[in-house]
């Protein structure tokens, strides 16, 4: 199945291409735009981006595999990143990760039993003064306790429709 952007996003793609002297420079922003719609970067997305930018698919694939923020496998509707670099680690990041693993019934790099959350381990997210922290769907949650984690996650879970449970995702950070 070929991938196409929604008409509104197609307009955004045109705008992106207009920002740079070369088409190729729009590669990363365009991949973000596609991932926003598709949830992850599939082979079809890579093909679409390659066509749109007149690049060989191998070069787009090379970009996708270089950067950790492009999901190369499907992820749940909610993505949770827990920072585990030293500054968060000495302020209890492992407690937060273990709490989430227990709550989700999965390990880091996998999707929760209910299919609503993918749990990933992040390297420094520039919130060292507010450690420990997690990032849920782009939003930072800082100075965490296990209670605070429950509040954030439960709220997101309540807003997410029940998921068809798929196999655990692997191959992430």
């Amino acid at each position, binding site marked *: 199945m070929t991938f196409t952007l929604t008409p509104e996003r197609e307009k955004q793609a045109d705008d992106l291409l207009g920002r740079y002297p070369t088409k190729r420079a729009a590669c990363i922003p365009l991949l973000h735009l596609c991932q926003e719609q598709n949830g992850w970067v599939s082979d079809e997305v890579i093909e679409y981006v390659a066509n749109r930018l007149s690049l060989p698919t191998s070069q787009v694939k090379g970009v996708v595999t270089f950067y950790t923020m492009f999901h190369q496998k499907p992820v749940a509707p909610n993505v949770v990143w827990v920072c585990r670099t030293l500054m968060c680690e*000495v302020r209890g990041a*492992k407690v937060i990760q273990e709490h989430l693993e227990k709550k989700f019934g999965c390990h880091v790099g996998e999707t929760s039993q209910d299919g609503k959350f993918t749990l990933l381990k992040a390297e420094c997210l520039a919130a060292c003064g507010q450690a420990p922290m997690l990032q849920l769907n782009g939003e930072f949650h800082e100075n965490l306790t296990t209670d605070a984690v429950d509040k954030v996650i439960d709220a997101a879970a309540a807003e997410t429709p029940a998921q068809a449970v798929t196999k655990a995702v692997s191959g992430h950070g």
Partner: protein
Amino acid sequence: MAEPTRMFTDRYGLKDSHTLAVAEQAGAYAQARRVMTTMTPDAIKAEVKAANIRGRGGAGFPAGMKWGFLPPKSEKPVYLVINADEGEPGTFKDRTIMELDPHRLLEGCMMAMFAIGAHVTYIYVRCELVTSIKRLEQGIRDLRAKGYLGARPFGVNHPLEIHVHPGAGAYICGEETALLNSLEGMRGEPRLKPPFPAVAGAFGMPTIVNNVETIASVPDILKMGGAAWSNLSRLPNDGGTRLYGLSGHVKKPGIWEAPVGLTLREMIYDFGGGPLDEKRPIKGVIPGGSSTPILRPSDVVNAPDDKHPMFKWHGKSHLDVPMGVDTMRGLGTMLGTNCATVLDSSVNMVEAARNLMRFYHHESCGQCTPCREGTGWLAEVCDRLCEGKGTVADVDLLVDISNNMMGNTICALADGTAMPMLAFVRKYREEFLDAAKNGVRGRLDAAVAASLTGASGLSGRTL
């Protein structure tokens, strides 16, 4: 007792400080308007040079001098690129600028573009900083609507445009040539220098790459005049005020503004409220991001010769030396991003080193063999020491690997891995030898783990 300054950060506390209306009411764009309508580019460059501003991204290169490397009278378009790929572990200062006062950065971009003859700026922001990107993009839209960006900003015939370019989660893209490759849509692999970006940078054109805080300081520099701004500092050849960051085992971590040249002790005790728990003394301080070698409070400066640049601080603890680009170099470390991390006696330094080595192994781009292999081996040897599978020879192996990485790669990531590794081994050798015999028990978060369960938590400020 050291007090924070509120000049660069004067708009941080205002309600909706990120909006154009609030920022402009509080003084934003007054300098851009004045400078672009009444000053020549050369006069602006002279003020920035007189300000003695050392780059705020970590290398500490004088920004005024960097601007001078552009070829004079270039026929080619010149680009300004802002490095907002803040990802050095321990560093979280640029995010405060982009979230709380994006217009200070945008105004700085406009003034810098006018000074160096550029018409387009790309702000390369790591995509994880969602709020920063949103606020910068909103700010740019508002500026276009007001005519501050576009064909004739403030009626001056010097078209200006600013674009936000998101990264995609690669630490190495904070290296300026990797950043340029990433901006051009390629893998973020550093380029061999020369040519330097000032000659052939973004899209092969002359390019100046500056840190967020460096460019956001330009409006203040022009407001005060370069020399006066420089004199705010406590140190020579390293001017102005700057952001100080503090994380780790302190009572009140956070970001503050103060003159260049505060001591680590002043920051830790006067700003940060001292160690998290008085019963656990400070064991080490990483002065400016994880690539800067760790300092021990017990070490003193040894420079008895009165011609030695560090003579002034002879006999003083490393925590009592002013934080400047040159003074930190004198201690065998680096100022880096000026964001320090405090580690108390609960931390096992082998475990701490292992955490950071895993980070570098994950973030090495893989282009150069000494770095790709070296970071991997450092992580692996630390792993086996921690797991009790190491030998005494492994401790020297860490030193050996590090020495073979330094200076043998295209970019500074390998050096930024090897230098802290060497400092960990040299300064906490007993602990590494102990790990070789007994492994490491306990966890890095031993000091805090209990207080995170439930609702109480640690003290900390939000932005």
